[in-house]
């Protein structure tokens, strides 16, 4: 049988899917052991037990300096920044993106402007934000929003334009006003696309969050890994990276689940990711 026709059974599939992870961890452990055998004080590839102790220290013991549980404090700070930032972007995507896609006058007025703004590399705005809004929360949230909103607005406008014209016309023949077309036909149909846009927006959002925290912050996941970098504390950095990855993954899955839950009609038929 051709390779491309060979299906994978579920148990075999699980083993195969786990294999790359196992290989990477195994390679790490061997390399770590080798380095530590040569120099017990090596910090570059800490043993898993060392990382375990670091996790224990940052997650389950109050910090000796502040009395806080660092990992949770950092997580809360970062999640609230990314949550508020993406939340504002989602709101803007609805408020601007939908009219942009639906109403010719808005499209003519704002289309070129939004397209231009979305081309500004957001990270270049960061110094401007720090100057204008200071080093506080506002700058970090603004960076996330500026970095994600234009793309989300454009993708929602695109989703509106892609709605079959027939549906918009049909609604009008049922007597719908512009507003009614918007709230009963357009908005409900682009909400699943909005969740998709948020999921896609979260990818750059994490980059902006970590960047902003690395440069100026007093707490947050990005702040912590750049802080402990000075002490080559790989035993903290690696678990933090894994934790950030897990958070990103979990948020993505939760949004996907929400979309299935709230908009079952959007996931009928073709597989939706």
């Amino acid at each position: 049988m051709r390779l491309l026709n060979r299906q994978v059974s579920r148990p075999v599939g699980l083993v195969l899917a786990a294999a790359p992870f196992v290989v990477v961890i195994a390679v790490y452990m061997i390399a770590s052991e080798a380095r530590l055998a040569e120099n017990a004080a090596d910090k570059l590839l800490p043993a898993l037990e060392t990382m375990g102790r670091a996790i224990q220290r940052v997650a389950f013991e109050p910090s000796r300096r502040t009395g806080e549980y660092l990992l949770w404090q950092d997580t809360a700070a970062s999640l609230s920044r990314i949550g508020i930032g993406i939340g504002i972007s989602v709101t803007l995507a609805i408020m601007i993106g939908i009219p942009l896609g639906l109403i010719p006058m808005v499209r003519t007025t704002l289309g070129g402007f939004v397209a231009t703004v979305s081309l500004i590399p957001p990270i270049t705005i960061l110094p401007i934000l720090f100057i204008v809004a200071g080093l506080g929360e506002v700058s970090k949230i603004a960076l996330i929003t500026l970095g994600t909103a234009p793309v989300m607005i454009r993708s929602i406008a695109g989703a509106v334009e892609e709605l079959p014209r027939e549906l918009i016309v049909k609604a009008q023949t049922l007597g719908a006003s512009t507003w009614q077309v918007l709230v009963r036909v357009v908005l409900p149909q682009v909400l699943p696309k909005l969740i998709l846009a948020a999921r896609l927006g979260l990818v750059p959002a994490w980059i902006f969050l970590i960047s902003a925290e690395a440069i100026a912050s007093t707490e947050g996941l990005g702040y912590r890994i750049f802080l402990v970098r000075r002490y080559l504390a790989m035993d903290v950095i690696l678990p933090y990276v894994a934790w950030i990855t897990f958070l990103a993954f979990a948020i993505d899955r939760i949004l996907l689940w929400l979309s299935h839950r709230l908009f079952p009609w959007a996931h009928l038929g073709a597989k939706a990711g």
Partner: protein
Amino acid sequence: MLTIQRLTMSYGNTRVLEPISLTLSEGAFATIVGASGCGKSTFLRLVLGQEQPSSGAILLDGAPLPPEPTQARGIVFQRYSVFPHLTAWQNLLLPHGIASSPLTGHVRGADRLAAEGRARALLERTGLTAARDRYPAQLSGGMQQRLALAQALMREPRILLLDEPFGALDPGVRLDMHDLLLEFWREFGMTILMVTHDLPEAFKLGTRLLVFDKLRHDEQAPEAFGATITYDLPIAGAAATAALGQSAPDAASETEITNATAATARFMERT
């Protein structure tokens, strides 16, 4: 009475419709046939108000129709005629929701009872009662079109426009749809304009047959001339008029029909 006065349509240099004038009496069932790309659907979109004619006017009872879709003209397209995010039941309640609340578009209170009564009756008539909580994607093509028809009729438009509504359906399902459509037409008495590819369907359903074709053809510049109505025949609309117990006094003669049929079949083959 629907009056169409010297309606023309061009897209840039491409002439789609030569002047069309037409008067449809209340309750007429006009079927429109012609080769594909001959402007039948464009004509329907003009009557619907989805597009603006290059010149000419469309009047309902002597008053010009607004240049955008309105409640006076219902529509069933071949596809995308029902809202995918609403169940069959919610689709049927939408027209009353729109009428009853300018802000939310949801129907409440006493209006809701009336809307639900009508929706229930139409579900029954269209055989969709068991499917009331399903989304369109979970319905067959025939069921979707029945739902679209029911939705268009929730608030009884005076004119019903049908753009190849049964074009994507299996032959058996089509026949059921014909019966349903004629039933609704007799009951509500709306004026129907229906575009179809299927000549027998046009003869079976219509009380008037409009054949669209180009009168002049320039091989060097095919875009120079548009189509117009080349045959306008009162027909027996067998399924329709016979059941009404009327003879069709001005029905076209045998020969006329034969000519038109042959001509139309020829036009269609050409494409």
